[in-house]
């Protein structure tokens, strides 16, 4: 879908039905990284109510964000985020956005390769990273990551369609394996019937208390905001304009519920159950290693699930990173750019720091790209109300809209200061950050038109 209608509105004949989006979201959000995230909640000392209800509310808010923020703009403009941003911000600023986006994709894909490498550890028995490890743990680990990284990269460059096909085939099977993880884990924790689930959930599985060393304590609010904002770049950040421009109606945004409630609810919960089984068997074994966790629960089928889940989601991520970088150097061949991107990703995958700190990384990813989503939202819905017409760069022939750029930079600077100096945790800063970005863009846009680009204003008015 990514290569079609990149610089034009999606025509009516190319629009897709509701089920296409249900399948896409279910597949994309039931990924290898879910097997990292679920256990990290347990490591963060979450309680049963906070996990079950916090995730429920947070995922619901995420679905509402796609439905009421992303899809309505997507189905009105029918443009990709990149083209929409180019019309507002100008080509040079979009290049900067592509660079940030591409780097984030590399880090994310790197953590997916890390997840897949833990599956190889089950067979080859090399030393694998612990919860607090930041660096490669030995030659075996390095060779495993290099092997998987090379395979993923070559396939992303030359056989993307094949992997997309495998991903489609694997998706329904993978969901069932995730459910099996949960059932096996529950039985091993002494839950004999679904009727006693809640009592065991409170007293045995997610008992709360102190987090493991080096982890932040998670409460209801952490769970809610994490579930809501872990895909912030996609919904509030507007990256999924690119997806929903193909939707026939804006209410298709609710299709994101398939990904949220299968991947970000069911899969996170079942993965966390497996980690509790591991901790109860050996409280000193705090390593979050999806491969061994899956193998202990479902044997080789579980290991295959980890490899397939990591691979099929790392591939499109590397591919998208390659596209983002290629937009910066359009003359370079896509294959060469993807190979270089894959090499960077593989190097990231060598370091378990990203995967082991995935909760923080995902929150950071959303925070960095969120301001541009606010710019798109304000420009589309509020521009005329506040006295400026939308798509300034396109109308005035600008290649760098300083109002949008300053909105982005200042929002990130303020959010970073709030986290580092203000005592606000990373998980909570993006909500006030969005309002700050929206306010800044309104103010800076007016100022910019009055002072910095009077000719642009004249051109727009003319």
């Amino acid at each position, binding site marked *: 879908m990514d290569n079609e209608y990149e610089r034009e509105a999606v025509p009516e004949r190319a629009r897709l039905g509701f089920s296409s989006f249900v399948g896409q979201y279910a597949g994309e959000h039931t990924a290898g990284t879910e097997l990292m995230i679920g256990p990290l909640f347990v490591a963060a000392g979450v309680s049963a109510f906070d996990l079950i209800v916090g995730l429920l509310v947070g995922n619901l808010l995420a679905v509402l964000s796609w439905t009421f923020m992303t899809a309505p703009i997507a189905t009105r403009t029918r443009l990709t985020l990149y083209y929409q941003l180019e019309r507002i911000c100008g080509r040079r600023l979009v290049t900067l956005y592509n660079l940030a986006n591409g780097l984030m994709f590399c880090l994310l894909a790197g953590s997916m390769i890390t997840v897949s490498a833990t599956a190889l550890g089950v067979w080859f028995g090399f030393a694998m990273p612990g919860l607090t490890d930041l660096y490669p743990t030995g030659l075996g680990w390095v060779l495993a990551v290099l092997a998987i990284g090379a395979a993923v990269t070559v396939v992303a460059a030359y056989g993307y369609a094949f992997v997309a096909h495998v991903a*489609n085939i694997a998706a329904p*099977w993978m969901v069932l394996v995730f459910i099996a993880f949960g059932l096996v884990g529950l039985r091993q924790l002494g839950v004999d019937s679904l009727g006693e689930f809640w009592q065991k959930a409170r007293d045995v599985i997610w008992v709360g208390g102190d987090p493991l060393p080096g982890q932040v304590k998670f409460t209801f609010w952490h769970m809610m905001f994490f579930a809501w904002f872990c895909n912030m770049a996609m919904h509030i950040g507007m990256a999924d304009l690119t997806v929903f421009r193909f939707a026939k109606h804006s209410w298709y945004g609710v299709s994101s519920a398939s990904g949220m409630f299968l991947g970000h609810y069911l899969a996170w919960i079942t993965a966390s159950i497996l980690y509790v089984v591991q901790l109860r068997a050996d409280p000193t074994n705090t390593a979050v290693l999806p491969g061994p966790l899956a193998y202990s629960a*479902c044997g080789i089928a579980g290991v295959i699930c980890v490899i397939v889940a990591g691979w099929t989601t790392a591939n499109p991520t590397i591919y998208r990173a390659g596209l983002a970088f290629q937009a910066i150097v359009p003359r370079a061949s896509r294959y060469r750019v993807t190979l270089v991107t894959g090499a960077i990703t593989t190097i990231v995958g060598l370091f378990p720091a990203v995967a082991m700190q995935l909760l923080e990384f995902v929150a950071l990813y959303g925070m960095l790209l969120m301001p541009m989503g606010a710019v798109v939202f304000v420009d589309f819905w509020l521009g005329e109300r506040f006295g400026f017409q939308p798509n300034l760069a396109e109308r005035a022939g600008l290649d760098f809209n300083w109002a949008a750029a300053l909105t982005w930079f200042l929002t990130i600077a303020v959010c970073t200061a709030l986290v580092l100096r203000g005592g606000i945790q990373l998980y909570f800063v993006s909500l006030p950050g969005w309002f700050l970005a929206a306010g800044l863009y309104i103010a800076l846009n007016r100022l910019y038109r009055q002072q910095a680009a009077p000719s642009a204003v004249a051109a727009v008015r003319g």
Partner: protein
Amino acid sequence: MIRAAAIVVSLLALVGTMVPSILFFYGMMGLDRMKLWMLVATVVWFVTATMWMGQRR
């Protein structure tokens, strides 16, 4: 005909992926046997689903 058979077998394989874990949950199957049946169902799913998913009629 082959396509129809592949669809039926692959759907049975999906059921076969799920049922062993349900039986294990209710104490009606051992862990090792459950893992074996899940692997068999997995192989059958990937072989048969490839024959019809994403293929044109």
